[in-house]
């Protein structure tokens, strides 16, 4: 069953007299618990696609359906609530709240939703992502890999249906990149989550179940399912 579906998705920007087609009619689906990597050159439209899937940006034309809900019909408020319940974001530069410790960062989306924090689950998550000892540390004192693990934990903590990762290893060295990706994949599998990952690193993309290539705002054939 498809958890993500886009139909003829277009996003055009106007720059002076020129129109930039960031996305130009993308039809794209992701199945439940699937791990999809989107690859493409800089400016190909991969980040725009990810932002559309997460409701961070609005399309010029077309539709985005996530977990059976059309994002186009939602207002800003509804989109925010949709994101904290259905989507977990992982950014290249981690985007952690610097004044909150590891634990507080992880439970932030749950607290924002006014839900009870399942401390057992958070402890398990910390253990899986090897962060138990860092629980009270402030993000600024952690390494890049550790910070990205915190970001992964935060993305998973609210048990969203889909995790959207935008170049999560972009600021990490090779070893840390592999560690982080290994943990992300393992955690997603453990908690039955779908991952859509953007990367320009082919090695990282190889970890995905399926690779989708994007060029000039269009999906290119040649990406494929990895057995």
């Amino acid at each position, binding site marked *: 069953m498809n958890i993500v579906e886009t139909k003829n998705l277009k996003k055009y920007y106007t720059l002076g007299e020129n129109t930039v087609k960031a996305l130009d009619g993308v039809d794209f689906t992701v199945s439940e618990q699937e791990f999809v990597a989107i690859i493409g050159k800089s400016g190909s439209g991969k980040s725009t696609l990810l*932002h559309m899937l*997460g409701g*961070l*940006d*609005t399309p010029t034309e077309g539709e985005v359906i996530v977990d059976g809900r059309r994002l186009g019909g939602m207002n*800003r*408020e509804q989109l*925010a*609530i949709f*994101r*904290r*319940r259905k989507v*977990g*974001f992982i*950014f*290249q*530069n981690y*985007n952690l*709240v*610097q*004044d*909150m*410790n590891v*634990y*507080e960062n992880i439970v*932030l*989306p749950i*607290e*924002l*939703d006014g839900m009870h924090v399942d401390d057992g689950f958070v402890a398990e998550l910390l253990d899986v992502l090897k962060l138990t000892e860092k629980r*009270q*540390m*402030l993000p*600024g*004192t952690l390494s890049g890999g550790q910070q990205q693990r915190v970001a992964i934990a*935060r993305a998973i903590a*609210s048990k969203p249906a889909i995790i959207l990762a935008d170049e999560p290893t972009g600021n990490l060295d090779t070893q840390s990149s592999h560690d982080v990706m290994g943990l992300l994949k393992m955690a997603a599998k453990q908690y039955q989550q779908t991952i859509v990952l953007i990367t320009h690193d082919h090695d990282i993309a190889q970890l995905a179940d399926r690779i989708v290539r994007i060029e000039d705002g269009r999906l290119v054939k040649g990406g494929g399912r990895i057995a």
Partner: protein
Amino acid sequence: MLRNNNGAVITRMATHSLVRNKGKNIVLILAVMLSAFMLFTVLTVGGTWIRMLKLEMLRTQGGEFEAVLYGFTKEQEEICQGHPEIKAVGIGAYSGWGIKTEQDDTLHSIFVWADKTQWETILKPARKWVKGSYPQKANEVMVTREVLKDCGMEQLNVGDSFTITYGDNLGEHTRELVISGMWGGYGDKKTFYVSKEFFEQSGFMLQDNATGLLHLQLKSGIITNKLFERLEKDLKVDKKQRLIPSSTAQTGMVYVLLGVLGLIAVICLSAYLLIYNILYLSVSGNIRYYGLLQTIGMTPKQIYQLVKKQVWLIGAMGIGMGLVLGIVTSFGLIPAIVKGLGIHEKHIEIVFHPFIFGLSILFTVATVKIGSRKPARLATLSSPIEALGYRKVSLKKQTRKPAKGGILWRMAKERIGRDKKKTAMVVASLGISLSVFLCMVTLIESQGPRTIVSNYMESDMIINNDTMQMREKNEWKPLIDISFLENIKEDEAIKKVYPVYNEEIVIPWQAEFIDYWMTNFYDMWMQEAYDDVKEDYQKHPEKYYSFLVGIDKDAFRYLNLTMENTVAEKDFLEGKACILYDNMLGLDFEKVNGQKISYYLKDNPKQRYQMTMQGITNDTHYANLLGTPPTLIVSSTFLKKITKNPYISKLGIEYEREYDEEAEDRIKDLMDDSSYKKDFSYSSKIEEVKTVEKAQGNMMRIGMGLALLLAFIGIMNYVNTSVSNLQTSQMELSVMESIGMTQKQLQKLLVREGVLYAVSALLFAATIGLFITYCLYQSMNYRQIPFEVPVLPVLLAGATVMLMCIAVPLIAYWRLGRKETLVERIRGFE
């Protein structure tokens, strides 16, 4: 090493930067301009006020002196001459009074001898012109046009002579006097200045209270309470002598000077906060730019110079504009403020002293310099690494225990606690403006005209029978008689009347009490000693008559509450007990209480009365008729029993509605319709309030203007901090939004942040502000009015601050975020 000549490029960069950050720099220029303007205004007001006060004092007292000693000994004069705090000592001596000339037989002039210091140092500043010279011989006088006119001889000139009959301590004399000189200017112009020889022939002695006056010119030019007390002690001023400061306004000068200093401190602090804040935020916002400059080879020293140059360009513009604004507005503003501070001169000469310009510039420059030091240093600390996109991580704190409480409150606290110093400054800035408002409104409200002006027993009007000031009873007229009283009582707008009755009495000599009274009375008020008249009093007590003062039950009850002890009402109403008027003698109540006193009416010596004195008062309301022996306050019912239709010397009137002008007009009409119309005098609460309001009206406007200006600075501080905080945390907020924080939650977070700022500022005002207000209030509370904070204006101000603190971040967020999508905002910071 050769000096690197890079001044031009740094100046060019500083200028470019100024143009680029126009918005922020306009605010900075405005801040500097406002502080320069306020400092200039405060200093000019201070300078002008002091000059005008001195001028006013010089004109009213006719000389430059700070204290006068009435009746002095040779020893006291010598102490004054050698006193380290006294600059000049002038002697003035009363030498006689004019009686008549051939042209006029009702003269109003006096003869005074002034010694050399008095004439040439003390009185000189008040003279505009002098012709001739000061009298040296016994028959010479120094005159004014006015004194000659009073004698009907205005045509006379220097060298002319005239014949005058005058009186002195030895009797009346008719003598031909020669005009040795003439003068014009300020002071008592109906005075003939005479030679020392003339004075020596007058029979007066310098030691006499009413004769010798020692004028003291102090080195400081200001007489403080402490200095006054020290002088009194050093000069060993006895009970009969009086050392009087030349004007009570003198002590006010200290307060005005303190006020000016306090205002300068508040203005500098507020301006410092604003300048520091804006610069700090500006530099921290541009930290990557400064880092970038370092990567392309600019040294930290050059960056420091760059920031400093920008600040000085801003400072120069702001100071220039502030001073121009100050000069332009000063012609209207400063005279109004100075008049509001109690100067009555029609024409206020504004003091534009270079010193004031210098001081205004100095204070502003110092504020700008201190305010910009740290931000400039911060700019030099930015590393090239930061310029390349890395974020500096503070390693000061490594761990943190999870905080408790609701997520939004927690986050709000986190956010305002991030830069404690900056938060403290914003809170202090808002708190200071709130405190100044609190202070102004409390002082103005509680010391306001309606609170200050309160008559005896809250009377709205007090009518006096001026004929009763005449020495002989047969000259008294029944101005306030029964029909007059009835007419007033009939008016429905009149709530109550309080008549004060008087009757002449004679108190025969009594060994114990009268001796005690008379000794104290003569010590305090008379030149001669009681022993000199004691025998005469014993033989002819009728020559030393006094008065009974009759008051009604209500007035008695009121008076009874004001005294230390209570008088039995029944005894008082039945005429068995009376209250003694103390006449400032400070009598010992124990020596008075329970003493019996006998008297008889001056008109009826045969009938004797006796009463017990049960109380003692110093309330001057009863002091309009006083004799040498004691004045006794008795029940008016009793007084009316022992004498037919006693005269009413005073009538207190209370209206149903306070400040009822129509009722007052009707009473004035009644007085106008009376055949004794010219013999009435009155004091009206409405008229006094109007006078005080007129004087304080300016103060209210000025005080509020100041509070508003400071509030403006406080708000600017808050707006700047708020906007910059939002700017720097926009990415954080966008990230929050991306992980599911809704707009409502974000707004709630900002509201909580605003509430925390407002509550902190309110706490500042409620503690420090209230404490300072209380201290200031008590230092000015001569009338012992209970301290009370006006609730409504303070609540309104508090609510305004709260609203402002909440609204500003919300508006700022709306303005900052409205043009960009979430992705653009996140991307903008990556």
